[in-house]
Every structure is written in C-alpha cells, then in structure tokens.
C-alpha cells in the first residue's frame, strides 16, 4: 500500500484561516471604534448596582401588585401569541419564495430576498413607533410590530433550512417525475420538520421578550410595568416583574422542549388545541381589533405617514453624524455578538454534561434562562449604573442578553448533531473538552456558525433599542430624531440600517459558503 511520494506538509492560507484572520481584524477595528480609554467603569454606581442584586431576595409580593403583574403578563402573552402566529404565515410563504431549491435563483428569489431585508432590518420598536402614527395606541400596533420583522426573519430561516437540508431524497423524487411541491413535501419536509417546529416555538419565546420590550414604549404588559418601576428605582417590584417574565419565558420554553422531544400524536394534538384556544383568548385579553387592519381610517393615516417619511432627508448632523453612528452600530454589534458566541458556546457545552454534577448543569441552564428572559435594554440600563453611559453599556447589555439566546441555540445544535464521533472518542479515553473539540463542535460547526451569523443580524437591529440608554449608534440617533419629530431624517437613518443589514446579509452568505 503506497501512495504518491509527494506529501503536502504545510497548510498555507486556507479559506478558513483567511476567515479567522478577517474576523480578528474586524474585532480589532471594532475595539478601536469603541475607544478604550480610562473612563469606562463608574465607581460611584456600584451601590445602586449592588442594591439591584440584593433585592433579588425580597421581591414585591403584595396582593395588589401581584394582581397587576398577572394582568400585565396575560397582555404580554397575548401580543406574543398573535404576533408569532401571524409571523408564521408570512414566514412560510416567504420561506418558499426564498429557497433556491423551490424557485431557483431567478427573479422571484432575488426580489424576495431584497424585499425581505427591509422588515428584517427594522426593529419591532421602530415598527411600533411608526405604526403608532397610523393606528394610535392600539394593541394591533404591538401585534404587527412583532409579526412583520419576525415573518421576514422566519422566511429567511425557513428558506435556508430548505436549502441546507440533504438534497438527495428531493432530487430522487424529482428525477422520478414528482413536481417540486410534491418532492418538497415528501422528500424535504420530513427532514426539516423537526427543526422548523423547534424554530417556530423558539420564535414564540422571542415574541414574548419582544412583547415585553414593546411594553417599554407604551404598549402595556410586563415591559410597561418594568419601565415604570425602573424609573422610580423600585427594585423589589422590578424583581417581581422579572420573575414573571422568567416564568412566562420558561413555560414557553418548556412547552417547546416537550414538543420537540415528544413527537407523539397526543402532544401534537394537545399543542394544536392549546394554540387554537389561545388565539381567541389573546384577542380578548389584549383587546385587539383585527378589522382595523383594513379600515378606511388606517388607509388614510398610512398614506399620510408614508408622505412624511419620504422623501428622506439628512438630519441636522449631516453625513458625518449618520456615518459615525452607522460605524458605531456595526462595531457594537460585532463586539456583542462575538462575546455572546464565545461565552454562549462555553455555557452551552457546560449545560450538556451528563452524569455527575447535575446541579451544575441545572444552574448553568438557569443562568442562560435568566440572561435571555430580561430584555437587552434592561440589562443595558443596569450596566449604565457601573459603566458610563455610551458605547459599553450597550455592548454589555446586548452581550449578556445574547449569551442567553445563543447559549440555548448552541445547546440545541450540539444536541442535534451527530453524537457518534464524540462517543467513540469518549470510549477510547478522551476527556470532555477533547470530545467537544475533536468530535462535537466540528460536527456541529456549520450550524453554530450559521446561528452566530444570523444572530449578528438581529443584534444590529437590537442596537436601536439600547439606544434609549444613550448607548450610541443609529439607535440613539433615531431616538433623537423621534424626540424632534423629524420623520424624514428617521427614514434616512432607517435607510442606513437597511444598508448595513444588506451588507451583513452578503457577508453572512459568503462566509457560509467559505466555511462549508
């Protein structure tokens, strides 16, 4: 058994190495953009920060406040239910139109891709603020503000899931004469159905958090109450509300996990029944009136808003302000995402360990749940206490929140990856970190990277929300324009966000192709 005499011994600049170098360079630029000077930590804020954490042990438990919390919770739940159901419809249709497998790379694919970047780039809060101009203080605002961007993201994920799946059963069915929809239904859907159901429930959990954040700008629910309690520094009340949010998120997540693990008929039917029951309940609890969607008044106000938004105009600060804010946004998102992915992966791996130290695993899971139950702007507000207002509380808030999100997504990806390589390594003497490095992480790597890239896009949108605590970037700029009712300038800033989203989309697709 001999091979050719010439053996390659040096790797050189492989695509993966180039990617790693590019990422390192980007991070260094981001740090430079953020500016690391002496003035980051604010010593005077530690006492308030500490008070926030000591209040954990004594949340507000008076009957009146608990009743208030309950009412707020069901309103938040209603927004999430209606918003995510609507987004599923949009996502399913959009996903089919976005998958290369279904529609090829022709005009439909290109135009859908271009079109769907727009709602994806605009955060729920911004949608809500714009929709407020059309519907007024109507629960429909919260529902649509969730449904539109979520539908766009879901469409992208569905489309990519269809394209990433093992193509062979689909190709075989096509080769034997089946039409594309048939081949999709019988050849592809069984492979990705689990992933899609899992993702839909994950989106529902996200919807709960978004509904909470929307509360901050007045939509009602837990977010609204959290904002009130924060403004008056009532830490005990804050913790009661956070626990309520945690319970709501936790329940949604537990339901999602049960559906994912237990794909029996009974569970599917119960889930369907629960969903069907929740829809009318949610409509009642939130007081949503869907007919407002097509009323004459809506059409008129929408038209007026459109007129005020366009043509767009530069704000008072001109190009310099816009470009500076854009670069800050990108830098913030890069740092927050990288931090979240790194720590998230470590925690995801830690949350997996089987056998001994089960308590450790449960604690890690709880930490991850807490991280993502509290919306990013609340974390950012907290970090403003100890870091001076500006760039770093925004990064910290976004990072902590996304550690929880990515930690959970990574844990699922690790669980669903092929376990055999790691099992064999375990059986021949490798320890846990080695099994991860040589078995589990490489096998799951394409999915982990995909999730990180997708999350980066979302973080860019989320910078607008942390802008409320003066974190800088386009978020703060848009807030300033809103305060001045300068709608035309807002459109310009939104345009910049869309442009960033498009660029990130391109980078993301190119990266996925390189790493594959």
């Amino acid at each position: 058994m001999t091979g050719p005499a010439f053996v390659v011994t040096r790797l050189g600049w492989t695509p993966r190495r180039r990617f790693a170098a590019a990422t390192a360079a980007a991070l260094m630029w981001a740090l430079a953009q953020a500016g690391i000077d002496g003035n980051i930590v604010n010593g005077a804020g530690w006492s308030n920060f500490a008070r926030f954490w000591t209040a954990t042990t004594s949340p507000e438990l008076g009957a009146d406040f608990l009743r208030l919390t309950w009412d707020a919770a069901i309103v938040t739940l209603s927004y999430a239910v209606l918003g995510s159901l609507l987004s599923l419809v949009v996502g399913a249709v959009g996903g089919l139109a976005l998958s290369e497998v279904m529609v090829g790379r022709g005009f439909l694919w290109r135009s859908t891709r271009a079109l769907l970047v727009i709602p994806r780039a605009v955060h729920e809060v911004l949608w809500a603020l714009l929709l407020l101009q059309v519907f007024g203080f109507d629960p429909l605002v919260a529902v649509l503000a969730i449904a539109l961007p979520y539908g766009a993201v879901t469409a992208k994920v569905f489309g990519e899931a269809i394209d990433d799946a093992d193509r062979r059963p689909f190709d075989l069915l096509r080769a034997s004469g089946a039409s594309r929809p048939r081949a999709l239904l019988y050849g592809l859907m069984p492979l990705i159905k689990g992933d899609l159901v899992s993702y839909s429930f994950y989106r529902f959990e996200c919807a709960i958090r978004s509904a909470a954040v929307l509360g901050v700008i007045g939509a009602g629910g837990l977010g609204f109450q959290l904002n009130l309690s924060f403004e008056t520094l009532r830490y005990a009340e804050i913790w009661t509300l956070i626990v309520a949010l945690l319970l709501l998120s936790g329940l949604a997540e537990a339901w999602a996990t049960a559906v994912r693990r237990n794909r029996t008929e009974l569970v599917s039917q119960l889930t369907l029944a629960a969903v069907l029951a929740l829809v009318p309940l949610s409509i009642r609890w939130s007081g949503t009136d869907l007919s407002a969607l097509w009323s004459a008044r809506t059409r008129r106000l929408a038209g007026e808003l459109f007129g005020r938004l366009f043509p767009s105009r530069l704000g008072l600060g001109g190009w310099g302000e816009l470009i500076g804010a854009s670069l800050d946004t990108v830098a913030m998102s890069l740092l927050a995402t990288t931090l979240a992915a790194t720590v998230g992966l470590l925690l995801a791996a830690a949350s997996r360990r089987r056998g001994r130290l089960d308590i450790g695993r449960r604690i890690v899971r709880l930490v991850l749940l807490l991280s993502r139950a509290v919306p990013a702007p609340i974390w950012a507000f907290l970090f403003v206490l100890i870091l001076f207002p500006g760039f770093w509380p925004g990064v910290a808030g976004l990072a902590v929140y996304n550690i929880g999100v990515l930690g959970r997504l990574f844990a699922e990806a690790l669980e669903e990856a092929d376990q055999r390589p790691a099992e064999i390594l375990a059986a021949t003497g490798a320890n846990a970190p080695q099994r991860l490095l040589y078995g589990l992480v490489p096998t799951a790597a394409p999915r982990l990277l995909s999730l990180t890239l997708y999350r980066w896009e979302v973080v860019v949108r989320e910078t607008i929300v942390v802008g409320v605590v003066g974190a800088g970037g386009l978020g703060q700029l848009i807030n300033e324009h809103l305060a001045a009712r300068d709608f035309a300038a807002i459109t310009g800033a939104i345009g910049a966000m869309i442009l960033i989203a498009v660029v990130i989309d391109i980078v993301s697709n190119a990266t996925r192709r390189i790493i594959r």
Partner: protein
Amino acid sequence: MTAAAVTVSHAALRYGPITALDQVSLSVTEGQKVALVGPSGAGKSSLLDVISRRVVLTTGNVRVFDQDVTALTGRAERALRGRVGIVAQGLDLALPLRVIHNVNAGRLGRWSTARAAWSLVRPSTDHAVRGALGQVGLEHRILARTDELSGGERQRVAIARVMLQDPELVLADEPTASVDPKLADEMMALLCRGGRTLIVSAHDPHLARRHVDRVVGMRNGQIVLDEASSNVTDTQLADFYDE
C-alpha cells in the same frame, strides 16, 4: 496461563421488546485475534458496543483487562479506555476536520486538553502520524478535509487512528466494508499484526478467517459457534448466512 483481555459474562442487551444480546458469554485471552461472524442483526455490533461500553448492558457483566470500566472514574477511567481502540464503520470521524486531526484523535487519551487544543491550530505532522497514515496508504492525504475522502478512504483513516493510538485491545466493527478486496486483505493483515488483542466483526467471513485465530459465530443475539479458525469449514460458514 495468559490473562484474559476481555471477559463477557451472561451479557444481555434489550431495547424494549428487542433483544440484541441474549445471555452471551465470551472470554478472549491477550494476544488473541477473534472474528465475529453472522448475518445482519445477529448481535455482532451490539457485542462490540457493550465491550467498549458505548452502550450499557441490561444485565450481565463485562470486564476489560480484569477491570469493570463502569466502576472507574476520572484518570483511571481514561487510562483504561486509552488501552482500547475502536474502529467503527467509518461514520465516527468528524467530517469537517482534516485527516490529520482525526488521526491525532487517537492520541487524545494520552494528551492534555491544552495540547489537544493547540494541535488543532498547529497540527503536528510528526513521524508517528505520517507512519500511521503510511500504513494505510493515505500519507498523501494528510492535510485533506475528511469530508473530501471516499467512504473507503475514511475507513482507512479510522484504522490509521487506531494504529496511532496503538492500544492493547482493538474492537473493529466491519472495518473493511467499503474497501476493495485487495486493500481489505492488507488492512485485515495490518489489524492482526503484533501482540494486540483483536475482536473484529467481519462482513466477509472468508477474509476474516484467513487472518484470525478464532471464529465466533452469532445468530439472534446468541453465540452459536466458537472454533479455532483452522477448524472452521467453508460449509459451516455458508450455513451461517443461509437462514
């Protein structure tokens, strides 16, 4: 008397209504080369799985080098496991990694975590690794990505990994299934070389018989044949696969 490398006592493995192993007892002395033969579903893979402890027995007992691996933890467990090498059906390599990393994985039992991590960044293409790959004829593919290799080539990489690990006991589950006959013969010879103990599940019983000392035949989760390979006739083997 030579020590027993592997002792299986009354092993039973059940998955709900399915019985994969039914009261199997087997003793393999150090240095012996044993081939497991039998039709699909006979229990060959299951037996290898319980010996390697990839799978937990329902009842019964397995001792490897006179130790029960489930009673061990920490360094002692790793030390014992490091003495056992496994070649599964080539589906156990991390495909996105390069061949060199998958081969180096054979040394993880001896490496610290830090060393293992560093090797991913700067893989050491040292003499031992190249030797192991050379033995299976894949030295020229040392830096290729594993997912670029064919099924047969991946199986050879799995064998190279075990060669590098150089364990005292090798458990091989159909290691030559996707490889052409001439190459399969060479690889079987490679696995049977030296003083290590070998238990190999054979997809081609005639090939196995040429290289091993002892043939163990299984059917329906039980051992029904256990002879020195020189005593096993062609008709006996043929009967086996005719249900």
